[in-house]
């Protein structure tokens, strides 16, 4: 019975949400809306669980002085510090208002660190392009030509290089054509396939065909 309950609940909720897409009547739409509101609450409440896990895993490693234990203390300290600042020093009704400690932490810690990590991509893509982008086959050659046209055509230098040519063979025009037609067609194909994969997996979960995530033991 206990094993069957989550399967039945999944089926009922899944079918109701699917029906709400087709039936606008409030007898279906309103419960579906309530379930969507509950989903928002459940996602938000998961963060409590996550924070507890971080403290457990890293706290044990820090106290027992396992490998890299100093970094664990840095993690725990900064996490606790941000939580305290966020709960008690975030500016109240002027949330993230200028001058609040939370805003300071956001502007001078969070924003630079996130921007730094994202900007690593610029370096990694250069090294990946040099290391791995090899024209081994005809397909790879087509890919390389398309990549070069789009890379140069989407920046002003591409416009500068070819602005004297007829518009149809200027690099920006060719880049836009590649983005609008061939890549669009390929992406649509992949997206349709992926969409069907989503539907198939969703259907398996709703009908209880796939329920490995619900078992406690195999």
């Amino acid at each position: 019975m206990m094993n069957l309950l989550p399967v039945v609940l999944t089926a009922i909720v899944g079918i109701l949400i699917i029906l709400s897409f087709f039936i606008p009547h409030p007898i279906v739409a309103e419960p579906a809306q309530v379930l969507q509101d509950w989903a928002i609450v459940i996602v938000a409440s998961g963060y409590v669980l996550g924070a507890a896990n971080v403290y457990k895993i890293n706290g044990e490693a820090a106290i027992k002085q396992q490998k890299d234990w100093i970094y664990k203390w840095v993690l725990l300290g900064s996490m606790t510090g941000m939580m305290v600042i966020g709960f008690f020093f975030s500016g109240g009704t002027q949330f993230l208002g200028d001058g609040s400690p939370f805003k300071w932490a956001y502007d001078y810690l969070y924003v630079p660190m996130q921007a730094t990590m994202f900007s690593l991509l610029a370096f990694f893509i250069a090294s990946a392009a040099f290391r791995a982008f090899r024209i081994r086959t005809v397909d790879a050659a087509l890919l390389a030509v398309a990549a070069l046209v789009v890379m140069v055509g989407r920046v002003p230098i591409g416009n500068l290089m070819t602005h004297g040519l007829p518009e149809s063979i200027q690099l920006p025009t060719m880049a836009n054509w590649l983005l609008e037609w061939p890549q669009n067609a390929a992406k649509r194909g992949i997206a349709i396939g992926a969409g069907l994969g989503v539907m198939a997996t969703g259907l398996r979960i709703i009908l209880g065909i796939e329920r490995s995530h619900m078992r406690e033991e195999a």
Partner: protein
Amino acid sequence: MAFGDTLEKVDRRWIFLVVALLVVIPLLFPLRLPLAVSGPARNFYQAVEAVPEGSIVVLAGDFDPASAPELMPMTSSAVRHLFRKNVRIIALELWEGGPPLVDRILHEIGDEMGKKYGVDYVNLGYKSGREAVMPSFGNSFSRTFPNDYSGTPVGKLPLMAEADNFTKTALFVNISAGYPGTKEWVQQVQGRFDVKMVSGSTAVQAPEIYPYLQSGQVLGLLGGMAGAAEYEKSIEYPGPATKGMDAQSSAHMFIVVLILLGNAIYFSRRRANR
């Protein structure tokens, strides 16, 4: 081929250093390369330009500081363009790191152009729940966001009394860095509520939006910093994106050189092995 061997074994940190120099130098010494406006960016501009004066527009800023260099310039340009037309803005964010960025843009440009919070623009802030928030928001703005970003009940904001769903708005502007973003808004809201929508996204995500652009579900698209620079040119207000295009140009050309060089070494080695 000794030179090829040397190049293949080069510590990748040298490549990183060259990339860094090629990005920093044009920022300090601008090249001012001429910019052409692409079709999708032109469509974005025209869709915003067609919004009647005095209307209400929803702006969803679904990004965080990581993608700020690409997306904040286009958000600023969109806000400026809308405020110029006396269009009022209801903003929301579905990314946790987004509200302060959008808030800063709204207040800075709002103050510059004499706009009043609560009357000309409102920032509803962040709501967790990702896609689940979207249809709920489409049904009722105030029910999904009972308070704005600073905790003020939306009932006290005059602008929110005039629009509680998409039937009262003229356009939906989505600036997105990934998930949840434009794709999810199209799937959950655009078709369901028949909303006119334009999108600005990161360069890597922009190709994914092209199918929606072609089908007419999205009326215009700004792709990455290039799209932001094209939009800045369209509204005749050059900003950080325009300045960044010189740096992006030199970095792109360097990557092209690396690809060609890497393949030159590969082909010469293949020929030598035959």
